[in-house]
């Protein structure tokens, strides 16, 4: 048996491995190499050492968008998880039409980011026009615009994960708590929440990385206006690479730094929330 598996190993592993190498590993390595180069097209790259990385932190727009993105991620992570949890709690109570509501809440997630961005820019600009303002008036408007958009898009998705978690809590635990005289609040705090730890891990992870990586909604809603002030990190990298001749290498260096940041944040978060999960 062991032998047979070993013999057929290449057949099962190779196709995926090749696809993974071509589609991910190779571009990734080339990408890191290019971050040390000066180039116009990637075929004429010349190695210039670390000066791209030095330029990254001299670039005000990068530092700005780093803070802007961090703030954005924290705000959306907290709000999405809180609201998704509340909605999930409500829709696991026995109320009429909960399946219909679940579907409706989930639906925004099925629309692409670009379309969502345009729809919301119409809606929000329409409302702001009442005060003679637009979303791109300054970066604060753009910030909250993007927060609203992302909430609308992601709450439904996270809600589904929370609902799955809540439904998996064994009924006898709640019952036992009731018999012991626990109030509704105590049931929530000491039974439901601890049992949901693994759902919370997943949801915080997803919202955290989604916030950091957000691009299309940003592009469609504000396009970085006014003047790159509402630019999230991913978009800042894009505009540096394509919008600034001679700065392609710097854009690439930003992409590498971006990768490290997202990786570090995601791993840390994963480690921290994993520790508190309850094992059954």
């Amino acid at each position, binding site marked *: 048996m062991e032998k047979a598996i070993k013999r057929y190993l290449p057949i099962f592993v190779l196709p995926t491995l090749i696809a993974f190498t071509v589609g991910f590993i190779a571009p990734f390595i080339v*990408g890191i190499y290019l971050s040390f180069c000066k180039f116009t097209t990637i*075929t004429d790259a010349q190695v210039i050492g670390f000066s791209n990385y030095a330029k990254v932190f001299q670039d005000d727009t990068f530092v700005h968008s780093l803070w802007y993105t961090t703030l954005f991620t924290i705000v959306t992570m907290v709000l999405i998880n809180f609201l998704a949890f509340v909605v999930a709690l409500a829709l696991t109570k026995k109320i009429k039409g909960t399946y219909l509501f679940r579907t409706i809440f989930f639906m925004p997630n099925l629309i692409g980011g670009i379309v969502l961005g345009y729809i919301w820019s119409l809606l929000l600009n329409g409302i702001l026009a009442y005060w003679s303002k637009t979303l791109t008036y300054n970066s604060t408007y753009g910030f909250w615009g993007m927060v609203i958009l992302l909430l609308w898009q992601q709450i439904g998705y996270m809600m589904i994960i929370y609902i799955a978690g809540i439904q998996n809590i064994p009924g006898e635990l709640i019952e036992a708590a009731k018999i012991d005289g626990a109030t509704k609040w105590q049931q929530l705090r000491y039974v439901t929440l601890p049992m949901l730890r693994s759902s919370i891990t997943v949801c915080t992870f997803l919202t955290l990385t989604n916030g950091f990586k957000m691009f299309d909604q940003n592009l469609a809603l504000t396009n970085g206006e006014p003047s790159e002030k509402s630019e999230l990190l991913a978009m800042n990298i894009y505009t540096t690479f394509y919008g600034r001749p001679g700065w392609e290498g710097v854009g690439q260096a930003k992409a590498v730094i971006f990768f490290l940041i*997202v990786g570090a944040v995601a791993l840390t978060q994963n480690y921290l929330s994993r520790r508190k999960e309850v094992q059954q």
Partner: protein
Amino acid sequence: MKNVKRFAALGMTAAMAVTALAGCGSSSSSASGTTTTGAGTTTTKAAASTTTKAASGSSGSSTGKVYYLNFKPEQADQWVALAKKYTEETGVQVNVQTAASGTYEQTLKSEMAKSEAPTLFQVNGPVGLANWKDYCLDLKDTDIYKDLQSDDYALKDSDGSIKGIAYVIETYGIIYNKSLLNKYCQMDGAKIKDASEITSFDKLKEVADDIQAKKDELGVEGAFTSAGFDSSSDWRFKTHLANLPIYYEYKAENETSTDAIKGTYLDNFKKVFDMYITDSTCEPTLLSGKTGDDASSEFALGEAVFYQNGTWAYNDIKGNEVDDDDLGMLPIFFGVDDANQGLCTGSENYWCINSKASEDDIKATKDFLKWVVESDEGRKSLSTDMGFVTPFKTFSDYLPANPLVKAANEYNKTKTPVSWNFTTMPSEQWKNDLGSAMLEYAQGTGSWDAVKTAFVDGWATEYKNAHS
């Protein structure tokens, strides 16, 4: 609980994969070319030349291929038609691709990395050339260079070699609606009796202020169209309007480019910009979201009298409320030398031939360009179908029917045209920084000093960045 775990694991894996991919998003898209180019170039070229030979069966001269990456989406279809005609006539394959509006640089960047790179592409002036000069062939011996009316329309590198040839001359200024202006002239207490009385900035401002005050009576929304700062419109100010202070400073200092601008004429710049944002169809706080389409439709529908833009805007205006006969053009009066100042005329579209293409392809490209500017079909297509004014001697009998071009030529006859010095602006970044400072000033969230800083200090910084 098992379910949750499984679900969690699944979600986690998916998210991981997505994160990792996004982390190097730009690298994965650009990396595809590296492995193939080296081997690809020779084989495909050989294959291509044999097929064309077989297809045409004629002389050995037409063995190369032409790949033109076109900059102007407005003329995309006309170029394809022209290329098809050329292929029918000579058997040489001509492939025309057009980059979507505002994405030329990035399209060029990725196309150039391919084994079948464009043989003919465009740069937008000295600053664009700096990025692409390693790819530009010296055009000194080409026919199109010899056909140029003057050397001014050739783009030269610092060593004097001809790297690019302008193929279209454009003019911008203040487009106005003659019938609306005449209607204003007939109103009681009008500041002028005839449009020809507007000969200076002060007069223009007086009229604009008065129109703005009487806009309801006149049936317009404002004197000027909205000075939108969406990226589809902001270049009208951060680039085109900003050309004027640069032009006058270069003229005063007797220079053609500089590493540090002084900003001597920024006060005039402010006056014009103030007029644009106060005598306008919309509140300054709405400017950040206003697009180029907003402005052109306001003008085309007769909601505004004045509209700063160029001859290329005709396609967007025609066929609406404003008749062709009602289109007039005025210079952007700047309060410096209004009596002699003409409209701003120049070019930012230069043809370049890819020096890294094969000999055959280069030859085919040169032949194609010669045909475009010398043959009847080519000349007719460029002038009539595309509506271009070209800087070539061969076009003396081929003038476009664009009324804005006529109006501009008429005005410039007796005046000194303002040259396009914005091609010497140090970088796109400089323009963007200036644009954002202007927007903040217009909205009231920033001061004029910030505009000055972006203009003067920004120039020095960006110039240093670009030349280090």
